[in-house]
């Protein structure tokens, strides 16, 4: 790819520095509501999602953005699950960058993803899993690209905007360079953080640490807000630093119906219900689902009520089970 074509894929260093310089990166209270946080995301923004597949998906924040009728987002994530369907179906995004996009292996290929991409109403821009990770990592490190050794020789690389090979000046080997991804906004759901945005993650961290460093704005949703004193007692457990964070929203069960490590597993019956609703007529099914679970609920508790108390208790019991032995 000639350099002109990759412009816009990677931002210039001075632009990136300037954006970062303009942010208030001080230790300050950033607690706000979902509705207030939604205002921080502009239509058309590039947005990275933390978590992976059905784990620590920032579902509550997406729910708030869908309810705020945002549009035109370019959304990236390591792997997309049902939240990807909802992005398309709600009009929040028609452009998704990821390595894999379906509900999850047990449910088969996503009917909604197929309906939107095959009709060309939406784009699924495919990168290798590691390429996604290294694009965020380059962004996190403040360099315009990362060298890597996969994706070459495949059809994926030909369709990946900005990926290019180089001859290594040290070894003569062929390497692939993938462009840095510095999203405008990152949405990340965590088990706990303080009011300043110091987040301590349990279990799998996926690509979240790099995403937080790479983004030009970070919105954290959290199962609970803890004191800064508690964070400071174990500073080596802080995985996302306050200096990257712009908003903190406390939302219990903020990943439902997906899981949050150590707290709740996926709400499987609800995931089955979703698959069932979208199986026959994906467009109508997704629209009905959005209506019932996203637009109609008066608040997040109402959303959870509609998923159901028994479901919630079951998911929570299974979630804490990881610590049973």
């Amino acid at each position, binding site marked *: 790819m000639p350099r002109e074509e990759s412009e816009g894929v990677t931002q210039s260093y001075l632009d990136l520095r300037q954006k970062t310089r303009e942010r208030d990166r001080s230790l300050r209270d950033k607690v706000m509501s979902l509705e207030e946080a939604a205002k921080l995301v502009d239509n058309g923004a590039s947005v990275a999602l933390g978590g992976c597949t059905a784990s620590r998906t920032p579902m509550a924040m997406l729910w708030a953005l869908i309810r705020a009728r945002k549009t035109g987002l370019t959304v990236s994530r390591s792997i997309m699950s049902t939240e990807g369907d909802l992005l398309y179906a709600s009009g929040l995004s028609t452009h998704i960058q990821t390595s894999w996009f379906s509900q999850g292996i047990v449910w088969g290929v996503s009917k909604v993803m197929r309906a939107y991409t095959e009709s060309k109403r939406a784009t699924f821009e495919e990168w290798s899993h590691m390429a996604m990770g*290294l694009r965020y990592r380059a962004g996190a490190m403040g360099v315009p690209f990362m060298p890597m*050794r996969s994706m070459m*020789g495949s059809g994926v690389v030909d369709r990946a905007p900005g990926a290019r090979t180089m001859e290594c000046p040290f070894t003569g080997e062929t390497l692939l360079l993938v462009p840095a991804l510095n999203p405008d906004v990152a949405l990340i759901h965590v088990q706990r953080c303080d009011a300043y945005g110091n987040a301590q993650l349990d279990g799998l961290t996926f690509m979240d640490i790099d995403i937080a460093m790479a983004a030009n704005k970070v919105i954290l949703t959290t199962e609970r807000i803890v004191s800064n004193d508690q964070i400071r007692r174990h500073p080596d457990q802080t995985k996302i630093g306050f200096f990257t964070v712009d908003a903190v929203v406390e939302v219990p069960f903020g990943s439902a119906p997906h899981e949050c*490590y150590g707290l709740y597993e996926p709400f499987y019956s609800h995931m089955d219900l979703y698959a069932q609703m979208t199986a026959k007529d994906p467009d109508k099914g997704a629209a009905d689902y959005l209506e019932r679970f996203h637009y109609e609920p008066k608040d997040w508790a109402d959303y959870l009520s509609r998923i159901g108390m028994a479901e919630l208790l079951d998911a929570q019991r299974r979630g804490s089970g990881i610590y049973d032995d």
Partner: protein
Amino acid sequence: MTTESTRATLTESPLKAVPAYTASELLGVMSARLLRDGQTVFAGVGIPLLAAILAQKTHAPGLTILFEGGVIGPFVEAGKLPPSTNEQRCTRRANMLVSITEVLLMLQRGYVDVGFMGGAQIDRYGNLNSSFIGDADNPKIRLPGTGGGNDIASLADMIVAMKHEKRRFVEKVDFITSPGFIEGGDSRAKAGLPAGGMFRVVTDLGIMGFDEATKAMTVVALHPGVTPQAIKDNTGFELPVPADVPVTEQPSDVELAILRELDPQRLYTA
């Protein structure tokens, strides 16, 4: 389902002691046997994971399993198979959890012996497609895409487990999602992939390898009761079966019992 039940019945006929098994169970058992003790294997969910655990519980207790969610050396509990390799169930009693990027970089650094995945469509040179059925610009079906597949296939020795069907074994895949030997010969290394490559393809009919020079797929073993004609009937390209091709030993009671205990709801072995 028909093909599988037929084959199970076939293998039952000579000796009544032989247990019945599904095609998926056959795949699981045959794949497990390819894993060696002490290896590190990057396993996808489904048959690969089942096979890796089966290997651990039989001949390879020191097999290290990796999941692309960032999990190193876990113990998966019977009956608690994860729906993907990115959920907490995958992490139970693991030795180490790392980020996704780190676990994939282990492949690049060379710490992984074997990549082990399922396949939707494969061609003569072991290229895999999980992205598009039909033309990529106007696909008949948009599939979920590469996930970790491309990175695993680019950087490790690969075992692929899949059903042996003509529509899946094609002359040329519609799209190379995960590279095998690309166009054969040294084309893989020339593309920038000097390490790794297809090692074995395990199907319900037999076990396939790749010619050292041409890198074209070839049969290295047939499962009990499978004829060269069955290979021909179910493959979309010329897949040579050597005259003296060995026959695999059929799944044992122990192997099948372990598989069934692992997946009592038959999520992956039905």
